[in-house]
């Protein structure tokens, strides 16, 4: 049995647009966000994500699990970026120390030290902005895109029939296999299998993942025969595919696509002109009495 994403028709900004227009806008948003490390450019992009989120009509109870996970992940990621400057070496060369904390103990001769620098702090915020914007825009897609329109949407975006249908099926299968995975884990646990307590060397540990992976994969392949038969009976792939539902661009969709393209091209131009790289607000240097440079 197929499990579906929690889509339902809502009065929302996203669902006001043609799904093709929304996917194109999303792609432009993604591209634009990846170009920037500068908070001045990331802030409007985060604002766009927040506007989309608060006008999506998605209720908290529907997305609670997904959002708690992603918020936890983003905070964890940003916090450790702040602590360590991980990844920052690619975008800044120099660090200005605000304060250094040293643990009063040593671990095997190593004394844990936390260097809080202006660059690390700003980099962590920039990274938070990038991940938050992308995550919010991505999470909302399955909740707001009608599963009945997956195929026609991707076909409308120019993918060949078969590939469009494969992407359509992929999106449909993800929640189903997620459910199957959970059922398999529960079934194995009922038999005494404890995944969290798998012991042994690396090879033994990997082998012990098989009782989880093999049933899910083989069950999925076995189940595929029914889907294949159903598709064959409907002469899938014999001629150009037609879709029960059709999509037509309206004026607002064209405007949305234009806004997305302008955003992407504008971002490209800004980047080519040498802006958008990592930026530290000069006020921070003044605040901590550090001379920039």
């Amino acid at each position: 049995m197929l499990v579906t994403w929690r889509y339902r028709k809502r009065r929302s900004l996203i669902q006001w647009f043609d799904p093709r227009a929304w996917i194109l806008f999303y792609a432009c948003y993604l591209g634009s966000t990846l170009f920037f490390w500068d908070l001045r450019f990331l802030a409007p992009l985060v604002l766009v994500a927040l506007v989309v989120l608060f006008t999506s009509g998605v209720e908290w109870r529907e997305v609670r699990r997904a959002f708690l996970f992603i918020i936890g992940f983003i905070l964890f990621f940003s916090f450790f970026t702040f602590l360590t400057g991980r990844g920052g070496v690619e975008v800044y060369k120099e660090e200005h120390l605000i304060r250094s904390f040293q643990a009063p103990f040593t671990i095997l001769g190593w004394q844990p030290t936390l260097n809080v620098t202006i660059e690390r702090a700003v980099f962590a915020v920039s990274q938070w902005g990038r991940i938050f914007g992308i995550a919010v825009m991505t999470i909302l897609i399955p909740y707001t895109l009608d599963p009945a329109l997956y195929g026609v949407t991707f076909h409308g975006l120019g993918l060949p029939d078969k590939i469009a249908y494969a992407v359509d099926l992929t999106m449909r299968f993800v929640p189903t296999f997620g459910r199957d995975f959970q059922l398999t884990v529960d079934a194995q646990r009922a038999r005494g299998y404890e995944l969290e307590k798998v012991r042994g060397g690396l090879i033994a540990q990997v082998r012990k993942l098989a009782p989880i992976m093999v049933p899910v994969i083989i069950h999925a392949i076995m189940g595929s025969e029914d889907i294949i038969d159903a598709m064959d009976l409907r002469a899938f792939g014999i001629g150009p595919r037609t879709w029960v539902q059709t999509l037509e661009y309206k004026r607002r969709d064209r405007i949305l696509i234009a806004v997305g393209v302008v955003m992407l091209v504008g971002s490209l131009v800004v980047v080519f002109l040498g802006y958008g790289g990592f930026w530290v607000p000069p006020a921070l240097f003044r605040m901590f009495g550090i001379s920039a440079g």
Partner: protein
Amino acid sequence: MDKKLTSIGLTLLAILVIFLVLVYVGGNVMGIERLKTGENPLLRFVFVIVGLLIALVIYYLTRQSPAWEVGTRQVVWMAIGAALYAIFSFLFNGTVFVVPSLSQVALRPAIAIPMFFGYAFGPVVGFFTGAVGNMFGDALTGFGLFPQWSVGNGLVGFIAGLPLLFADRKKSMDTVLWVGGVLAVVAAAIWYFNRSLPNMLFFDPANNIFGDATITIFAGASIIVGFVLVLIVRFAFAKNVDVAAAVTWGMLGNLLGIGFAAVSDIWINGYSPAAAIVGEFLPAAGPNLIFAAILVPLFVVAYAGMQRQTGR
């Protein structure tokens, strides 16, 4: 060559040339900082095109083979493979689900899925499984998209499916083993002479390691360990060509696909070649080889059992 393929190939080639000219003229001649190699999102898309061109060239040279057929079954298998890879990538990314791990090896056993789907159902299914599955997996985790790594994962499945192009699978396996062996030894040698380079793929907050620690001896040598395991499987299953070929070709797919993605970061992120190999390729491809040697045979045997049972 049919018109559609010609136009796709030429379009990809044209886009590639435009990007390269942009990078060369803009970055090297005009000195525009963001067009120089380094942390550069533009170049990610160049490598997507390079990866697709590699697949297209192989397709063109062997286009008469039935391995390239895409019918109803392939479409469904593509979707199943990609969805499974996405789910297991999401779960084994180590954030939701406690995964057993050893030393500095971040386990990502899901890589066995594109290898298996590529081998069992062909290169097109393998490519789709790896590329689209990786994209969905990253999206589910909220990582964003890293297109060159998705194409690299696609190539893993694509290459794992290439034995369908060979009439004599046994002979092709030996050639693949030699190529894989040479690549594994070269990669291990690069690590040996650059042991002080950081492992950029490994993060262990509990031990205050954030990709700035050097990789352990085990992680550095994991590519050799994995290759030895592949060799053992190859000869232990000498009579079961399916298992031996799936593992051997999966190994080559892993070395070339992950190698492609890691090497592309030399230009995209400005890493030195040694840093790309030691910091990215080895920590990813080494453990992957171990998963290939252990999990792929289990999948192949289970799938053969299912085929016998259902008669399909």
